[in-house]
């Protein structure tokens, strides 16, 4: 009987000795993310009534920096927290919602899971598409470690006189893929100053930051909510370069100097984004 107890105690000691990893400073690791041609789309589902959303926006911005600018961000204002005149407060009169953003929000179920959250390359994980900000880095890291299956090149030509953009997206597949592939082209805008609820004093004034700077705000899609097939059939091959040109008239609020064209190619069935690219409207 004694041997039995000694065995149990020895097992417990072995368990204790093997169950602790004490980490010593520095706690932050520096890795090189500047090599690689894959870029990753982070859609930050947000709203001006969402107190935790400024923190998520900062996180997305930090990821863009830490991942050597290989992250493209779209701020999708949709759902309960994005409603204009939120909580009957005129300070939240701005309406940043869009038809496309609303449709994506409904399809992926973002706002129903509580903002902030997002999509990373629209990749479906074990519990669905929607990821809370704390998971963005890990999923983006895994995506960035892959090589790009397609490369996108954006060329913009902005007619200042007519306030009209002409943009051409060139898509070149780097490896053979099967399925139907679509291209979505969006306009995003930086430097929009409007009120935002906030609970993080490190980010800005709380509880309402009346001069919050909204960046990467989705203004709309140029070629429909779900985009268009890259080819007539939707099927693609490596030997063809696909060129899609669109024109878009800008409304007054869309300041060309602050706007970007964001284009991404995705698989229609899985919704996963193969590649994303971004270019300033005036670049």
């Amino acid at each position: 009987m004694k041997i039995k107890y000694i065995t149990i105690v020895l097992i417990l000691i072995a368990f204790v000795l093997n169950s602790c990893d004490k980490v010593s400073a520095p706690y932050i690791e520096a890795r090189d993310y500047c090599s690689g041609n894959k870029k990753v789309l982070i859609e930050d589902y947000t709203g001006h009534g969402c107190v935790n959303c400024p923190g998520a926006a900062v996180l997305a911005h930090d990821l863009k920096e830490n991942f050597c600018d290989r992250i493209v961000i779209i701020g999708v204002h949709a759902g309960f927290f994005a409603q204009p005149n939120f909580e009957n407060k005129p300070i939240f009169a701005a309406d940043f919602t869009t038809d496309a953003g609303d449709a994506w929000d409904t399809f992926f179920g973002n706002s129903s899971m509580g903002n902030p959250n997002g999509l990373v390359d629209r990749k479906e994980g074990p519990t669905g598409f929607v990821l809370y900000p704390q998971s963005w880095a890990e999923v983006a890291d895994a995506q960035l470690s892959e090589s790009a299956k397609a490369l996108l090149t954006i060329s913009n030509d902005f007619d200042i006189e007519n306030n009209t953009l002409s943009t051409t997206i060139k898509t070149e597949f780097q490896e053979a893929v099967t399925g139907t592939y679509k291209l979505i082209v969006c306009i995003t805008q930086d430097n929009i100053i409007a009120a935002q609820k906030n609970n993080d004093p490190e980010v800005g004034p709380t509880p309402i930051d009346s001069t919050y700077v909204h960046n990467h705000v989705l203004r709309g899609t140029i070629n429909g909510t779900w985009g268009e097939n890259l080819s007539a059939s939707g099927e693609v091959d490596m030997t063809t370069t696909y060129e899609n040109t669109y024109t878009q008239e800008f409304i007054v609020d869309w300041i060309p100097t602050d706007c970007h064209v964001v284009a991404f190619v995705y698989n229609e069935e899985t919704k996963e984004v193969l590649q994303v690219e971004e270019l300033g409207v005036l670049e």
Partner: protein
Amino acid sequence: MKKVITILIFTVALTSIVTAQGFLSKSQVHGSFEIDGMYYQADDALGITESDIDGNIFGFNAFADIIYSIGDFSAGFRYEAYLPPIAGFDRSLDGQGFPYLWASYTTDKFSFTVGNFYEQFGNGLTLRTYQEWTLGYDNSINGARVVYEPVKGLILKGVYGTQRYFWAKYEKNGRGIVKGFDAEFNLNDVFASMAESKIKLTIGGSAVSKYQADENPFYKMPKNVASFAGRFNLGIGKFNFSSEYAYKINDPSAVNNYIYKNGDALVVTGSYSTKGLGIFAMFKRIDNMSYKSDAAVTSNALDINFLPAMIEPHTYMLAAMYPYATQPNGEIGFQLEVVYKVPKKSKIGGKYGMGITVNYSQINDIAREKANDTAYIGQSGTMGWKSDFFKFGDQVFNRDLTIEIDKKFSKKFKSIFKYIYQDYDIATILGHTGDPNVKANIAIVDLTWKITSKKSIRWELQGLWTTEDKGDWAAALAEYTISPHWFFTVADQFNYGNKHSNERIHYYTGSFGYTLKTTRFALTYGRQREGVVCVGGVCRQVPASSGFYVTISSSF
């Protein structure tokens, strides 16, 4: 020859039937099931439009638990379906299947379980897995568990496995692997000399560890994170004391914003009980004790441990409006409850006596200081903060004073009167940043009139008065019961004090139910107000909704 073969076959068949009958007669099957369904409708007053519903007019949650046992062996499964989950339940539950399958062999000294199981070490500070249907919560372990009692009064437990994460299968380098040991000694059972002692002492200890691969691109993550706890329970006559202290090494996670300080938790309780009087006191301190098997998860899932709640659990409509959710990153508080039964035939007690319960609890933030001069409190990638162990922070998370009097006036008429004062940090607990603490006075009158031996009527009148949040509320309920089968209820909660006139809404409901033995059916029509549902300090947010709600449950 043919005859012999026929007789042999007949004999074997008969033996099999007899054996099967014997086998079946020793077998037992138990089970329970529940179906909850919601039919949604648009409601202008609640701001719910047809486009919000967008064709998703049904929510459906259901489960069936089946347990088979024969002798020392038992096995079972639970089927669950969320098609889609009812509003307010985590959308990740969407789906159906068998998330809980198990088999167990148990003798006097030994129990071995494979598959899914629930387990708790002590108060749960290092490990507790459980299922709570009303929250849509299940963190069961899928693996193996051994329970061994070598001598009476000494129980050793070991667990190993991965936790349930909605419907997601375990994948290598995905969520962590949990392993743990627990030992509990009941000294009165182990030592014969203490068997008759008035002092009853139990001591215990546990160690739990999780392994998760480091997939984080920025932070150096510990692959193995361990927690340890020691506990005792001491009974001396009418007094009882118990305590548990738990310690966890660095566990940077999304919940604590990737800080590297160690965590700890202390729970101390004391009670005194004699005829007509009960006193209960509790102290609790938690510092950085979220412990999940996936460091990146923040939702109500994958908790390895459980941090016990320390407030009066309110069930009346308005009293439950501001429920407290345990703050795993830090809280310190105490609770004191006195239960006194005024004797029968006394001046105040009258013919039937009178019960008085007073409960006070307060929970503050822990006192935090910068871990060093260069980092702010809670900054990721640092030690987070420093904190004096017994010092209360200035921020009050929750204060609750409840005074309850229950009085029976006659054989047919009894009552409960309740006054509650709540001071509730709505900014921290519900994320209403910038909003001041809600200070609410709540009064409740609950009257029951027994018309006949089978028929009774119960009324509730409630008021909640506050200048914060949504202002004043009034509520009323009438319930007619025909035992043992029927009940009919109408209720209304009216937010008459809302400063926005368009939000002065009646949340009315009408329901009836029928119970036949262990089977219960209930149908409710009306409005559900936006709110929070909490069980044991674990909460889920519930959006406003309108429509029909049906529940069918049974057990056998």
